[in-house]
């Protein structure tokens, strides 16, 4: 009696967990497992939105999944489940570039195409990697924003970077200097390092503002630096006189955009990223060749370099018209 009760209770839970998802896979449609770093993360919910959009255009099916916590072990379990379902392709943002390689190698051995997006998988474990942008595109976009915000494209600007040894920051700075050649009106007067620490970035930003009273634009290419810079400009009463721009997160900057401290800034758009990753995954699954340029639908074409890395696009520009919407996402 009690055994039967217990058993039926357990079975009821099992059945409950199982119901609603019992349809057999539709044959024919290309099925792509889109794997997040972790579930319940606004960034990846936006990625999913983009992937769904691409799936609709291409007549493919998205299986959006991911581990509860951002761990490599959890992602491997999720990948094993996708391999077992014999999906046609997997698009994954890796929690660990190396630990996923053995599992993804097994997937590729069984004919599954593997694309990493956002956070790359080591080259041995993937067919291609879609980076949200490239150093060059980031440098160009930041300089273009600076030129837009300086009156008539002329004036002095300074940069708040992270640490002097940060690989990303330094290559972005290099690309910004290259892009400056085409804009003789802009004058880079100083680079300060805030070490990606909020209060140090703030002090460096204040120092730059005091040092250069005729500064037109304050640029920061770190998400912590840009918030600190915006706060410094606001606290110094320079809102409107000195404009802040660079790379940052909509959720952290929405307030400064409304106040006019940061009229515009850039960062990749996760919806576009999900859309493009899905486009590439479907094309590879349908026999596309990562050695040649691949179409990403409305996002144009992508060319993968020898190391299998391709850049999606210029960073997406956020301003008062769209920042509120994206602030809810990431």
């Amino acid at each position, binding site marked *: 009696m009690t055994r039967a009760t217990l058993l039926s209770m357990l079975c009821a*839970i099992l059945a409950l*967990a199982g119901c609603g998802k019992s349809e057999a896979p539709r044959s024919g449609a290309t099925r792509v497992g889109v794997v997040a770093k972790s579930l319940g993360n606004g960034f990846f919910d936006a990625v999913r939105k983009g992937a769904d959009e691409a799936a609709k255009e291409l007549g493919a099916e998205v299986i959006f999944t991911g581990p509860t916590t951002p761990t490599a072990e959890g992602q491997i379990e999720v990948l094993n489940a996708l391999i077992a379902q014999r999906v046609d392709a997997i698009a994954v943002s890796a929690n660990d570039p190396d630990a996923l390689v053995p599992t993804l190698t097994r997937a590729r051995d069984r004919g599954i195409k593997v694309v990493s997006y956002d956070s790359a998988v080591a080259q041995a474990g993937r067919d291609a990697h879609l980076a949200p942008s490239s150093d060059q595109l980031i440098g160009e976009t930041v300089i273009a924003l600076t030129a837009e915000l300086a009156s008539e494209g002329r004036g002095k600007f300074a940069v708040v970077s992270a640490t002097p040894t940060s690989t990303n920051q330094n290559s972005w700075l290099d690309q910004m200097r290259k892009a400056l050649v085409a804009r003789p009106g802009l004058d880079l007067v100083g680079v300060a390092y805030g070490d990606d620490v909020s209060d140090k970035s703030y002090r460096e930003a204040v120092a730059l503002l005091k040092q250069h009273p005729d500064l037109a634009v304050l640029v920061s290419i770190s998400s912590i630096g840009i918030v600190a810079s915006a706060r410094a400009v606001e606290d110094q009463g320079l809102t409107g006189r000195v404009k802040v721009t660079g790379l940052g997160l909509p959720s952290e900057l929405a307030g400064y955009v409304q106040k006019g401290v940061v009229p515009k800034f850039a960062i990749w758009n996760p919806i576009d990223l999900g859309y493009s990753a899905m486009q590439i995954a479907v094309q590879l699954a349908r026999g596309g060749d990562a050695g040649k340029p691949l179409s990403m639908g409305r996002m144009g074409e992508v060319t993968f370099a020898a190391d299998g890395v391709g850049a999606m696009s210029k960073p997406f520009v956020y301003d008062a018209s769209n920042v509120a919407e994206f602030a809810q996402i990431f």
Partner: protein
Amino acid sequence: MTLVKLMRWESMLGLVLVAEVVLFSSLSPYFLNVDTLSDASFNFTERALIALPLALLIIAGEIDISVAAIIALASVTMGLGAAHGVGTPGLLGLGLATGLLAGCVNGALVTVGRVPSIVATIGTMTLFRGAAYAILGNRVLKEYPGSFAVFGQGYLAGPVSIELALFAVFALAFGLFLHRTRWGRAIYAIGANPVASRFAGLDVNRYKFALFALTGLFAGLAAVLLTSRLGSTRPSIAQGWELEVIGIVILGGVSVWGGKGTIMGVVLAALVFGLVTFGLGLMNIPGIVMSIFTGALLILVVAVPAWLQRR
């Protein structure tokens, strides 16, 4: 009374396992497939291997919460060894030795230091994990020799992985040890009543120390397997596994109060646990729902016997 009850528990787990297989194979066309099930076994073998000695430890009335942190520490040790050119047998030795040593630390704290095991191992959990982070920081160690991959990625024969074979062999060995030897009976006695056991002439502390060391050794073994399977070490490796391992032991019918439980139950629980997570994953149930489900299963498993006893 206990025997009848335990038999009932295991047969129930067996039935749940059968129900799972029937349910998942009817819901997903991919479930009943040798390759698939072989892949699925990787979802639980490492954790199940630690559950075996941990079951003995919990039966003896103690607990070890530091097992996942021991994995991290052992993995870091192996990673550093590999970076300095240690070969595959040496790495195996390093991993096992680190685990054993960490287990001895736990054992000494509890038996010599007289710290309650839950406090001692919460402390060492933070200590071992902290040491792994202090040594590695943001770095990753991945200079493992190619032959090291055999432990976590190799197959003994056909679809039977080395990990699965190890689990089968050790499950049998632990079953025989606990249920067929006088040492096994002593472990039950210690868990049921340590004071009476001491008066009966059992060296309780020696047993407990040995069980902590054994649990550490198996955490070291799990570290070898997991590191070999991942091919890399980060300090966050096996994060959160302690709760899953303890979950398997408790789902297996081992009493958290000590003195009760069987290896059969733990083995069945490992299979139930492994197939549930894999089966739900196969149907693309999000991990969040899955963890709610496994949490509910655990509460049910602990609450129901208590409720039955009250009736």
